[in-house]
């Protein structure tokens, strides 16, 4: 059984799939921790697309951009986890729908 060569389309399809999973996680999951993991999934989907395009078209720029994304993602996770811990200390919960104090 020959599925043929792995093409750019396959990579992009996988990337899209990851992205949709991430989106669903961000919108639907209640735990703030999982929401943040889903955010990471979104970033990794974008990374995958960038690397694939860079590889298949022989471009260096998208691959360089990926390093920046990884760096920013690391910083974002550190900050996000700190906020998460702070919120948990005050509210004793990580459920996103409990955090609605902006509403009147």
């Amino acid at each position, binding site marked *: 059984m020959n599925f043929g060569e792995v093409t750019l389309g396959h990579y992009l399809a996988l990337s899209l799939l990851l992205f949709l999973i991430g989106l669903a996680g961000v919108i639907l999951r209640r735990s703030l921790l999982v929401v943040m993991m889903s955010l990471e999934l979104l970033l990794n989907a974008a990374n995958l697309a960038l690397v694939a395009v860079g590889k298949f078209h022989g471009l260096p720029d998208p691959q360089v951009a990926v390093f920046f994304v990884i760096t920013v993602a690391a910083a974002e996770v550190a900050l996000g986890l700190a906020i998460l811990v702070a919120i948990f200390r005050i509210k004793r919960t990580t459920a996103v729908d409990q955090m609605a104090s*902006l*509403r009147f």
Partner: protein
Amino acid sequence: MIAYAPYLILLLPLLAAVSIRLFLYPFPRISVSVSTLACLGSFMGSMALLFWGSSLGQGIVPALPWIEWGGFRANFGILGDPLARGMAALVSGVAFLVHLYSIGYLEKDPCRSRFFAELSLFVFSMLGIVLADNLISMFIFWELVGLSSYLLIGFWVERPAAGAAANKAFLVNRIGDFGFILGILGAWALFGSVTFADLPGRAAASSPGWAVTAVGLGLFCGCLGKSAQFPLHVWLPDSMEGPTPVSSLLHAATMVVAGVYMLVRVLPILEMSQATMMTIAWIGGWMTLLPALLACQQNDIKRILAYSTLSEIAYMVMAVGLGVAGPAMYHLTTHAFFKCLLFLAAGSVIHGCHDEQDIWKMGGLGKRMPFTAFVTILGTLALCGIPPLSGFWSKDAIFAATAHHPGLAAVSMGAGFFTSFFMLRMILVAFGGEPKNDAARHAHEGSIFLTAPMALLAVLTLVGGLLPVESYLHFQHPEAHETWTLWISLLVALAGFVPAYFLYRQATKDPISIPVLREKFYVDEIYQRVFVSPQDAFARLTDAFEGWVVRGFLVRGSGVVARASGQGLRLVQCGQVQIYAAVFILGVFLLLGWLWRQG
């Protein structure tokens, strides 16, 4: 290099002040010695300059270039003319004696390091005024002197009255200094130079009369403030809140006569305008009489002496106004000796009576403090101009100059009557009679540090009249000496003793009471009503503006608006972050679809 040595006269006290403040502060004994030795060094230097300076010629000390900008030029130089040399020796000599006296006077004060640092700062600034060779650097030292006066009046920081007196002295001096700096700017605008050596030559150049008068009066304003002449005299009596050595050195012997010294320096400018000279002479003339009247009803021993200082400085100012700088400087010198002596004696009395300053609570001190009583009588005779003490010769020189101005002669000689009156009153009440309380009963002489400077000053008070001040300064006698002024002034001064003797010989309380004199002609009250109260009202108004408009309306108002609009906008929020995300994603899809259709 040796030519720069005179700068040491200036630098030694500054060095002492700085090193005490920075390093020696916790060691009072070392601070005291350093400050006193620095002053002694300055005195020796000044004496060397006094005796050997003349062989070096006029520009004995090379000037350091300081400001050169456009046509403006001011060096930092040391002046070597006889006037500066004589004054420097006088200032540092008296300052050294007062340093010695302060060692005894403040021997138990824990803050005496600070006192001596401030005293050294004063000596530095005062010598700076004396040796300055131009108006700009003189003005800077002038302000430094004001600063050290402020610090020393307020030395006893725990007394509210001392703080108030220090503030008053500083603020009143600001008014005079404002006129002074206007005068300096005017002098530069008119004559193109602020250097004293250039002034006689440049001042001869033609300038409009009113401008010269204005410049002269501006410079005189500086003298009004520093030398405490009407209408800026109110700070000097209050400055007696400071320690007595300070009253003696700053507010009697040296600092307050800086105004007279400055007038003598700028005499070529003043002499160009008859109006200026007459203003100075008449303000001086009346100021001899009025404080002498006030002193007759004062009860604080230091305030009595302070009013007599006002009166004596006025003699010098009047002499300058009459164009005779020689007698003015002569009287300045002798006055420095006998007034310093009188203040040190007053300090000795206060020290002996445990900080009692009211003469009506003393009494009988003549028996218990014979030396102090003796030097007080000596100083009084000199102050009243009784021959052969020093004050007689210098006052006589001033009276001689009033020979052709009957009005001035009348007020200044009348002042002599009241001077004799209140000085004998002070002596009879404080030193005569019986002790009024226990402090006076147990009064005793102070240590050798208190008596030795008084003894030296007493000698100077005796023989100070022999000092050839006028011939040393090369001020010529303007006219032949009239003898009638001598006899009349002497008679009037002696006459003042008579009523005082009969009124106060046995008095236990003041037999005469004149409220208007006791309340100092209500000048303080008038200033309070006219200047201080409106200013306070204005301050309260601006405070209210700040509180209600700036803080209340603008700052808090903007805060309230931001808060209210924030609360309003909360109404349209749901607070669920995932719904925001979903709406956001939906929006992105819609945007992408629209872009795709546009294609």
